């Protein structure tokens, strides 16, 4: 069974569209994250949720809206997509909200905005 899963794996869309990426973890973890990895492989945290509560919200355009219906799911909705949004988006989870916890990453969603 996949520990952290994301859908879709690939997403190709036109500029201006709205899209969502879904993430689920079956590890029983309390904390989930969204990361953005650009073409240079820089891995940057976007959001962190602990037990459905937003904990970390880095400087991300408000076109990005995370939503956590329960602690096993963290979805990412992106409005009015721009060319610069093209990247790989990774969902991750950790047992607790602690900088000492191992993070388990999903397989990534490769987003290409045309």
């Amino acid at each position, binding site marked *: 069974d996949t520990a952290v899963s994301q859908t879709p794996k690939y997403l190709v869309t036109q500029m201006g569209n709205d899209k969502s990426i879904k993430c689920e973890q079956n590890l029983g973890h309390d904390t989930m994250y969204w990361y953005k990895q650009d073409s240079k*492989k820089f*891995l940057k*945290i976007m959001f962190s949720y602990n037990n459905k509560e937003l*904990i970390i919200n880095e400087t991300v355009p408000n076109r990005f809206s995370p939503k956590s219906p329960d602690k096993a799911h963290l979805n990412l909705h992106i409005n009015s997509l721009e060319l610069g949004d093209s990247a790989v988006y*990774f969902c991750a989870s950790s047992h607790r909200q602690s*900088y*000492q916890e*191992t993070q388990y*990453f999903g397989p990534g969603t490769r987003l290409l905005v045309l």
Partner: protein
Amino acid sequence: GQQVMQIPQYQHVQEGEDFTTYCNSSTTLSNIQWYKQRPGGHPVFLIQLVKSGEVKKQKRLTFQFGEAKKNSSLHITATQTTDVGTYFCAGGLQAGTALIFGKGTTLSVSS
């Protein structure tokens, strides 16, 4: 903001050569983690170091945490083609903050 610097950004070696990537922080870290991302894959946890001066080994991989807890290194002895990928360090600063990832070192190995 807080940063964790990692060098080099890229490294190419011949199979059998050694490889080292370095991670530096301007502030004292509470812990450091290392992750490996294979091409087309996702980051996978390798190890965590917590104590000052700590050294841990995993087969051909040796991880060190500096005495001042501001730097760390990953050394691979006798690289193999399976070592190809990007290695990230990630530093933990304090409670309530997220891990800060370095920009990674991408290793390529030719046989």
